[in-house]
């Protein structure tokens, strides 16, 4: 057991029926840091969070949160954590104030302190004006912010956020990002899951990529990017036949080929010699490549390299499928 870790998991396994959702997951999250568990839908992110937040038990493996075992010391762990799941966990028929006050009372605050805490959190999350209206009348972004506020009522030291911005418009997403960054700066450990590379890149001090129930990579965003390839050579081609020609020569090395936009990329170390050699190789006649650019790899490249799939585009926002099921009994 390491005392500098807020979350520590070793060999977590979980199956539903024949489907192996987690196949031996190891995680370590430093106290006071923001940790991003990144993965596509169905990777097992929600299952991992639910195990760490004491809601379900792993079939095998161990986990400690705030230094406490999530099974044996389940109830003590719950005094240190909060969980905000993908479904808004607030009552629509109650006002924002009433929701927060109720949660404050449940967290053991006196009536007066619960009321103060509610007012204070509504102000902090820029919801004071709407505080007396029923949540049913609120926008999706406001509800999500209330959800975040709700997760802080009991002064948790570890905050679990399961896909905090899924389904939000870009403006609300920015607002949530600001709040998460603020949380981190106040010393709380944040454990968030996301399908968005940009989100992990922006918020997380460390990222673990989960795919098929396994951690396929972990490190800082910069480390992950280095791990894949230092640089990327983007090519813009003259026409369709040039595209076919170049893509054919690159074969499996082609990254994100786009026939309509006549673009394709390839990994490189960024040295002039290699870029020159690559250009000569794919375009010996010096007619196919119109323009080129070399830049640092993005997390998209990492994702592609690690999972063999491109990252999901952000417009898949509203899909609430597979993983979101609480109990995948249908599998």
């Amino acid at each position: 057991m390491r005392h500098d870790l807020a979350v520590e998991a070793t060999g977590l396994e979980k199956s539903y029926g024949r489907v192996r959702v987690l196949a031996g997951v190891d995680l370590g999250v430093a106290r006071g840091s923001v940790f991003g568990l990144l993965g596509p839908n169905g990777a097992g992110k929600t299952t991992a969070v639910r195990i760490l937040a004491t809601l379900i038990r792993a079939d095998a493996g161990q986990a400690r949160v705030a230094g406490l075992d999530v099974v044996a010391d389940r109830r003590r762990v719950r005094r240190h954590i909060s969980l905000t799941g993908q479904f808004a966990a607030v009552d629509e028929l109650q006002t924002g104030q009433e929701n927060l006050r109720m949660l404050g009372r449940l967290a053991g605050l006196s009536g007066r302190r619960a009321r103060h805490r509610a007012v204070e959190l509504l102000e902090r999350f820029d919801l004071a004006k709407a505080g007396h209206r029923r949540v049913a009348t609120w926008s999706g972004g406001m509800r999500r912010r209330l959800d975040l506020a709700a997760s802080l009522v009991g002064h948790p030291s570890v905050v679990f956020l399961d896909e905090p911005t899924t389904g939000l418009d870009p403006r609300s997403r920015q607002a949530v990002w600001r709040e998460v960054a603020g949380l981190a700066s106040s010393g709380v450990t944040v454990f968030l899951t996301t399908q968005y590379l940009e989100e992990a890149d922006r918020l997380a001090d460390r990222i673990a990529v989960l795919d098929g129930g396994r951690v396929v990579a972990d490190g800082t965003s910069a480390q992950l990017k280095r791990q894949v390839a230092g640089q990327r050579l983007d090519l813009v081609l003259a026409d369709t036949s040039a595209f076919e020609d170049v893509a054919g020569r690159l074969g499996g090395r082609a990254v994100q080929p786009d026939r309509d936009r006549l673009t394709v990329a390839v990994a490189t170390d960024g040295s002039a010699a290699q870029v020159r050699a690559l250009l000569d190789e794919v375009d010996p006649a010096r007619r196919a490549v119109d323009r080129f650019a070399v830049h640092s790899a993005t997390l998209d490249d990492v994702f592609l390299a690690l999972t063999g799939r491109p990252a999901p585009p952000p417009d898949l926002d509203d899909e609430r499928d597979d993983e979101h099921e609480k109990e995948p009994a249908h599998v």
Partner: protein
Amino acid sequence: MSDNGPAGSWTGPAPTGAALPIPALAALAQWPVMAGRSLRLTRRNLEAILTSLLLPVLLLLLFVYLFGGAIQTGTRYVTYVVPGVLLLSAAFGASMTAVSVTGDMTGGIMDRFRSMDVAGASVLAGHVAASMVRNLAATVLVFGVAFAIGFRPSAGPLDWLAAAGVLLLFILAISWLSAAFGLLARSPEAAGGFTFLVSFLPYPSSAFVPVETMPAWLHGVAENQPVTPVIETLRGLLLGLPMGTSPVRAVAWCLGILVASVAVSGVLFRLRTA
């Protein structure tokens, strides 16, 4: 801001010595908060208010004025039918608990409650408490309308008290039974089906017509189902009629249903949240 920092921070080894509240006491402390929540939710659900208050009154008027003329019970029909309508509305109103419980189980809020170490029992008991209040209001309303249209019970103060006690026990039992069904159902719609089923239970009983007027094969069902002794007890207490063993059977049924439902709810809650 004074409290951005985590209050419950830990240093070094796990604080195994820290006192945890005893689960039953914690549940008891949380219960009023949950009951307050359930009541607020009920009060703001217009549909639920209309059905739980208006439907019993409409049923009373329906039975007395539309069917009543054709039914011979030996007394004025309004006198005969009021206990039946009370029971029907109690069964119906209490069974709406199932829908609220399923709503909580299928939404995200139960995860939040559980991750805060809120006891499942206090969430369910909160819904049951709201059900009691809601049905008490409906009962008072039905009595009021019944008086207005000529219901004249002959009960003394003690009889009234006993009648109220039996009715409350029945509502309590059906509310917990509904909570158990609410845990079983996978969607609020499915839970609504249970409400439908329970509100049919009073029909094959002595609630609206004497059992002797039913086909012989139904007598066994009608005489031995839980609703009949409860109705006979209410009728006996309010109208001063002989009750025989009805009170004992009524209380036994209600307590039996209550104890079984609470036990089954406990098991189901653990299963559904495993």
